[in-house]
């Protein structure tokens, strides 16, 4: 260190004492370094207020549109696409063999 040629000034400067780091810093620094799964379970994220409002508004609008579209559709009775009661097995089966061109060569 460059020698301070003024001990009186040095002594006066030393009168301004600042305490060490507060205990809350330990939690902020040592508590923050955790694994991703721990973060997924108990992590917190800070969202700026405008972004939070925008996301909330978008969710409300999307919910309103979904509800409105759902109400517009008329309720239709559920009906089967086909009925197995009319199903009849084939009476005569005629097997026809078709040969390919390669088989004749």
């Amino acid at each position: 260190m460059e020698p301070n040629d003024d001990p009186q000034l040095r002594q006066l400067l030393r009168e301004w004492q600042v305490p060490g780091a507060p205990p809350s810093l330990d939690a902020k620094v040592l508590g923050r370094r955790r694994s991703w799964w721990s973060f997924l379970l108990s992590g917190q994220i800070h969202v700026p207020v405008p972004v939070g409002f925008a996301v909330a508004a978008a969710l409300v609008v999307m919910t309103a549109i979904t509800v409105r579209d759902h109400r517009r559709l008329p309720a239709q009775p559920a009906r089967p696409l086909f009925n197995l009661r009319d199903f009849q097995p084939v009476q005569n089966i005629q097997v026809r063999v078709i040969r390919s061109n390669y088989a004749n060569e």
Partner: protein
Amino acid sequence: MTEPAFQAAYHSHKDVLYRFACRMTGSAAAAEDIAQDCFLALWRNPQTYDPSRGALRAFLLGMARNLVLKRWRTQRPHDPLEDESLICGPLDLEGEERAQTVARALHTLPPLQREAVILAEYEEMSLEEIASATECDLAAVKSRLHRGRQNLRRLLAPLLEVKGSTYGTK
């Protein structure tokens, strides 16, 4: 960087970083934020610290210093970081404690003079260490320290015993 190594670094340097940031910003909350950012940056990117370039303390103080100056530029975009022509007058001490006066005097200094004085007087760092932390050459550190001390002598003249007609101009 391993967990024990990080913990050791944190416990060794947290007070130095916090005190430096507190003296530079004048705010305990800002100092806590700055110290936190420095340590989390070290944890996330330990490869940014190269032991061959200097001590970890100087590296961390350099990081803290950059964050302090970034805040300064955001809060006071038109104020210069260094004002060589600045000659301070004595402070008005009415109704103020000596420690408060010293704090106010240091905050009157331009940031680059202030950091040099804080690192030299309070953290007892060598000129080389200050140069490493502030990423500037020795001559600049000497000059800032000299001007900073001169200004402090003028600012704190009412608290110092007068040597001659004008204190700090010898």
